[in-house]
């Protein structure tokens, strides 16, 4: 009984980053490993996730570590959204415009969620330039709120990936290189999550 009364509440962790960095792939991987479920669909078309999705009480545990998280998978943050970009993926103009409108609302929702978190996993695509305004803004907001943050350098399975470029760009933060797609280095990520957010 006392264990239940004094049980530490779960840390609410937001998964943030630019579109197509692999946020939902990471959320799915974490949830599959510890709950056997997924949280959302993934796609090569940007802004596939256009609403915030939550999964509560996810127990992450391994050899010598354990932490309980509420996972918040957020839409990709962007400063520009052009429906023509979606038409290049074969969407009709009507569908592309609808996707763009929903994507803008998703970005707004993701930003509002920053006020309700205990920490952030900032997911970056290791094949892309890390010095984007979205990354700088998320990092700045977490630093301003004095909230813990981990940078996840995703897509290390790709030949052009360079997690060192991300480490060089943000040397004041912990960077964990992973591939959410094939599960590479996930044990290290879980251990780091437990120590940082536990």
């Amino acid at each position, binding site marked *: 009984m006392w264990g239940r009364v004094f049980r530490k509440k779960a840390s609410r962790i937001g998964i943030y980053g630019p579109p197509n960095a692999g946020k939902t792939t990471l959320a799915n991987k974490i949830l599959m490993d510890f709950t056997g479920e997924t949280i959302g669909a993934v796609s090569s078309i940007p802004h596939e996730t256009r609403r915030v999705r939550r999964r509560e009480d996810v127990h992450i545990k391994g050899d010598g570590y354990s932490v309980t998280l509420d996972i918040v998978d957020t839409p990709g943050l962007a400063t520009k959204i*052009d429906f023509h970009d979606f038409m290049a993926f074969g969407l009709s103009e009507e569908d592309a415009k609808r996707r763009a409108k929903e994507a803008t609302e998703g970005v707004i929702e993701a930003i509002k969620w920053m006020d309700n978190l205990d920490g952030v996993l900032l997911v970056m695509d290791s094949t892309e330039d890390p010095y984007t305004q979205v990354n700088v803004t998320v990092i700045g907001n977490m630093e*301003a709120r004095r909230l813990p943050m981990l940078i996840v350098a995703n897509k290390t399975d790709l030949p052009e990936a360079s997690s060192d470029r991300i480490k060089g760009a943000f040397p*004041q933060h912990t960077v964990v290189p992973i591939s959410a797609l094939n599960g590479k280095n996930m044990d290290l990520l879980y251990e780091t999550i437990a120590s940082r957010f536990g």
Partner: protein
Amino acid sequence: MDSDINFAQNIQINMISASKLQAMSTMDKIRLILDDVTNGRIVILERGLDPREEAQLIEHTMLKIRDTAFYGIEIQSYDRDNRPSPWNILRKNSGNRVTVIGPANRLKTLKKEKDFISAVIS
């Protein structure tokens, strides 16, 4: 005079001083930036926005995209210097650095590194 440079279209650049920015509210800054950028102008802020203001600027940019024929902004600044030093605390240094903002269809970043930004205005 011969020149290889094409001056076919003028582009207005508005530079906002740190003292003017300091006297403005967050909403006034965002309104000023988005008014300029939606009219095709480039805005250079001597001292950029703080992180919460940047997030609000992105939020209001999304509202503009949703409600008008606007594709968004390109915004570039250097990473903040947030190293906790006595000097920064004494100066109340926010770490904000010069920031360039323009319409996404006119301002394109070519290359960005820690201390170097290369962009083209079209």
